């Protein structure tokens, strides 16, 4: 192959992946520009984990905010179990403010990427409300959980006993994208539920799963859960 052929071939391969392939080198080291972009992406990932969701945004969505037992970000990273249980204060507030036993409970949480919420929630959340109302479903009182892990839905389920649950949560950032959002869904969340009963639409971000389409599809999945009274691997889609 000639150099030009190799370059063309590499170009077509690169179209298939955002991964760092064919970046080249100088001597034994990466090129400055690639090294810098690697450092930038790494910094963005760290920022996503340690960042906070804009309080203005939470206000704009008309959500109130509660916390898990995570205490600090460092603690949150070392003790995933703490992110799965709500603080006593949170439980009191939720009991006080939320309508119990709704058909669908929506919760938003920063998880491992605050910027995932910042970047995507204004597309996902209103589209999700539209989709649920198109299926004629009644929605409970939505709120925001700071320092949440996926299984915090179980703890919330114990308090509010919703029929179906949607948790919009920031994903662990990678070096390609630091603001990817996931939507975890399940039927009747409760303590000790099996992971195989949860469902997820992942990779929601600008160059991943389209936010509006993901939200529109959540409505369909939730309505199927309510019809079939189950979720996860047993659900017929």
């Amino acid at each position: 192959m000639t150099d030009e052929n190799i370059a063309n071939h590499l170009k077509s391969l690169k179209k298939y992946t955002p991964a760092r392939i064919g970046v080249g080198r100088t001597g034994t080291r990466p090129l400055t520009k690639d090294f810098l972009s690697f450092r930038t992406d790494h910094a963005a990932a760290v920022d996503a984990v340690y960042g906070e969701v804009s309080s203005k945004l939470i206000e704009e969505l008309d959500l109130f905010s509660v916390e898990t037992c995570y205490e600090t970000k460092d603690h949150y990273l070392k003790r995933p179990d703490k992110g799965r249980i709500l603080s006593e204060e949170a439980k009191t507030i939720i009991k006080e403010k939320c309508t119990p036993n709704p058909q669908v409970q929506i919760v938003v949480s920063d998880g491992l990427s605050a910027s995932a919420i910042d970047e995507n929630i204004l597309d996902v959340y209103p589209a999700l409300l539209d989709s649920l109302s198109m299926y004629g479903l009644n929605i409970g009182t939505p709120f925001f959980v700071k320092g949440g892990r996926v299984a915090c839905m179980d703890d919330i389920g114990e308090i509010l006993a919703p029929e179906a649950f949607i948790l919009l949560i920031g994903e662990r950032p990678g070096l390609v994208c630091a603001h990817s959002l996931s939507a975890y869904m399940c039927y009747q969340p409760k303590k000790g539920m099996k992971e195989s009963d949860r469902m997820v639409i992942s990779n929601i971000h600008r160059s991943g799963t389209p936010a509006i389409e993901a939200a529109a599809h959540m409505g369909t999945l939730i309505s199927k859960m309510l019809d079939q009274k189950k979720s996860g691997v047993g659900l017929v889609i």
Partner: protein
Amino acid sequence: MPACQIMDRSVIYASQMYKTPLITEYEIDINRLSDILAFEYKQAGLMFENVQAGAVIITGETAQKQNAQTIINYLAERAGDFVVATAGADLEGILAGKGSGAKKRSEETEGVVANIDIGGGTANAALFQNGKAIRTLTFHVGGRLIRLTEQGEIKYISNYIRPWLQANRFDLQVGHTVSFELLKEVCLCMSKSMLSYFMDGPITSAEKLLFSSISSPLPQLKEIIFSGNIGKMIHKKEPDSFKEVAKFGDIGPMLAYTLNLIVKESSLFVKLAKETSRATVIGAGMQNTELSGATVFVNEQLLPLKNIPILNVFIDSEKWESQVFKVEVDKVMKQAKQLFVEKKDPPFALGLSGLEYCSYKMLQSIAADICTPFKKYFPYSNCMVVICENDMAKAMGQALKIYSSEGMQIMSIDQVDFTYGDYIDLGLPAAGEAISITVKTLAFG
């Protein structure tokens, strides 16, 4: 979002080949055709009602017969539940290229791969690059354009090639006997004329073989594949007598030989076709049914919907402006109203291409800007079809539902490759929500 794909296609039955039954030179014999069809269905062990999707492709000279349209309709009603009827040289060329393996080959190799499907009356060429058809052209080149007996007596010369024969001073006349050398010379010259388009550019009077003139020269080719009945014979040894040339009563065998001779002398690389005589049919089967995106917004009760023309608006996500879009979509709807005077419902399908990223705000604005002019131009319509290039059909459908008038049926599907002026058939749900679709590309630029 989850995606569905057709993983495998297989041929379960291939019928024998028949000559088109004709009543006169200008009319196809429907009765004999339907006998053939009934017989072959029986051989295949199939009932008409077993067939859920089918394609009727009337090709080449047969499409010019007076009752071709009647035949298409006749077959469409009988060959199965959901039948696509298409004809036209451009499409045929592309289908043959899919069937012969040229399209697939172009995905595997850098550079342009051409397929030339040569049958009785026409040669349909299609050029593929990276798995996409980039050009088509058609020639009056085929085995049955000149027919003769085993003694060398000419029985028929098609009017389509007379101008070219004259320009090259070939004195052939019906009823006369031709010399073997002259016949070979004619075939050589015909091969050279056609293939010159794919090599160094057309030679003198080659344009007289073209079906319609071309606007710009063809790109440099890397490989060439021959399909069709002539393509099948291309690697045969030289016919050395009239008996061998005229074994089908025409010049086919000689034409196949001379084509190969010319290509062998050139720098073009000839690939073997996966299918030859059946390339178009196999290609039609491959083209016929595809799947939409897995998340769509449709009312299954209204399916299938056939032959909906697509007019599209391109939206650049980065430069999107509500005002500009409003004007564009109004223009397209106005055009749709003028083009499709017959009051069909749905009147047309609005294609939304581009739009790689769509925010919730954009979605709302776009949906509102579609519903307003739709109501203005098509007040009688109760069904709106929107086809998105990118994954957003369900969201778009839900938004349109909110902004459209009460009772409007919204059909919104996505992940469809289309261009302005294509026709689309929306079939039944095939895998989950994904529906089977057929995009019929007739015009091609």
